[in-house]
């Protein structure tokens, strides 16, 4: 029997998430778990006809949770790099985003070019693809890797601990809404274009096939676009959460 049979029998889909902040995965004021990825996962469970259980980990805990079988799949804004693909099975990308550079609005760093200066303090997220991109793009800069989610990058830049930050553009846009409008300058050009994908284990081929099928379906029938428009491409979600 495959993993899908197991999930059906169990009546429960176990999904590992990292609550790294809007727009992908967050906890609302009342403690409800929500976000773009979270809603997609809920949709998956609905299509499977089972209930969903979220397991909430730090970044450090996500992969062990999947590999040790605590979770069936992993839903986070994770870029499917080839190195990571050696360990877990990624679905096809369901959206593309990229790393962007942002600074405080009144900063002397106006363009990405300014940040190349030697000693510029650049905040990135530990282990995120932005960390790699920043190292490539700003070889002379002083790269600081933070742990604990995108909002802390914004806080670091806002407080002056870093001159600029590099992170996923959707995340930056979503998370900067917590500040008064116009607090940050988000540079228009992306450092890179990166896909986002879900992940599962290589010993669950049936689940992987099904998840790819699911992504095809929701992009064809527009449910994926609706989700992204609500969460990622606009600030509509702010009204409800």
């Amino acid at each position, binding site marked *: 029997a495959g993993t899908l049979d197991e999930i059906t029998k169990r009546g429960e889909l176990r999904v590992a998430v990292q609550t790294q902040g809007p727009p992908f995965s967050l906890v609302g004021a009342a403690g409800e778990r929500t976000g773009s990825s979270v809603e997609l996962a809920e949709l998956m469970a609905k299509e499977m006809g089972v209930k969903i259980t979220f397991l909430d980990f730090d970044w*450090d805990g996500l992969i062990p949770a999947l590999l040790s079988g605590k979770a069936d799949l992993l839903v986070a804004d994770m870029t499917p790099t080839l190195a990571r693909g050696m360990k877990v099975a990624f679905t096809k990308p369901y959206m593309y985003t990229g790393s962007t550079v942002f600074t405080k609005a009144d900063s002397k760093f106006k363009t990405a070019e300014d940040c190349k200066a030697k000693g510029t303090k650049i905040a990135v997220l*530990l*282990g995120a693809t932005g960390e790699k991109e920043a190292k490539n793009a700003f070889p002379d800069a002083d790269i600081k890797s*933070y742990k604990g989610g995108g909002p802390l990058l914004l806080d670091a830049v806002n*407080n*002056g601990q870093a001159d600029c930050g590099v992170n996923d553009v959707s995340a930056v846009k979503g998370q900067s809404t917590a500040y008064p409008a116009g607090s940050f300058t988000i540079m228009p050009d992306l450092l890179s274009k990166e896909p986002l994908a879900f992940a599962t284990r290589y010993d669950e081929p049936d689940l992987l096939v099904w998840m790819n099928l699911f992504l095809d379906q929701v992009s064809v029938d527009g449910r994926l676009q609706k989700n992204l428009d609500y969460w990622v491409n606009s600030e509509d979600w702010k009204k409800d959460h």
Partner: protein
Amino acid sequence: MLENFSFRTIVEYLPLFGQGLVTTVWLSVLSFAGALAVGIGLAAMNLQRGRLFRIPAKAYIDAVRATPLLAQLYFLYFGLPRLGIILPELVVGILALSLNSGAYVAEIIRAGILSIPRGQVEAGVASGMTYVQRMRLVILPQAFKVTIPPLLGQAIVLVKDSALLSLIAVAELTRAGQLLASDRFMPAEGFITIAAFYLLLYYGLKGLAALSGRWLGLAGART
């Protein structure tokens, strides 16, 4: 995770772990020196007769003991810039560890000084020594011996606590393990390796404690 445990990757990352270990060691050493300074100052305040010094020292010690290091670290890290003080992460980290451990060190030193029998103080008084002479010649050398083992215990705690600095972008030992987890998705390899390194440091410090105990035992015999 264990059946695919990859020693090869660990070896590949060993230089990184080495760097992390070195960073952990020297930042622990600096922080512990800071903690000693803070602790001695606080203990001195706490042993004064006047409330003027004693009450702030006690309040500080209690506040540090009752709150997690994480909160203290962030309090400094986010708080200092609001006062216009922007310091490198490493400095904030060492400061946080020093201020945190300093409170525990102060308690250890105070207990050490209070453990010296009253008769010793009286013998000093009776031979006409001043307060400073008594402290320097009679009390502190004896208190020193009593406090060495608990101080080394606190050093062990500090070394492990320094892992928290990875949160504010200090590249120490724990960070090296996390890199293995996030780049290669090999958390088991990463964590077990750092555990081994921390254990190494632990046994090092414990050996030092035993050694110092024997050394001090030789120098001044037991009472």
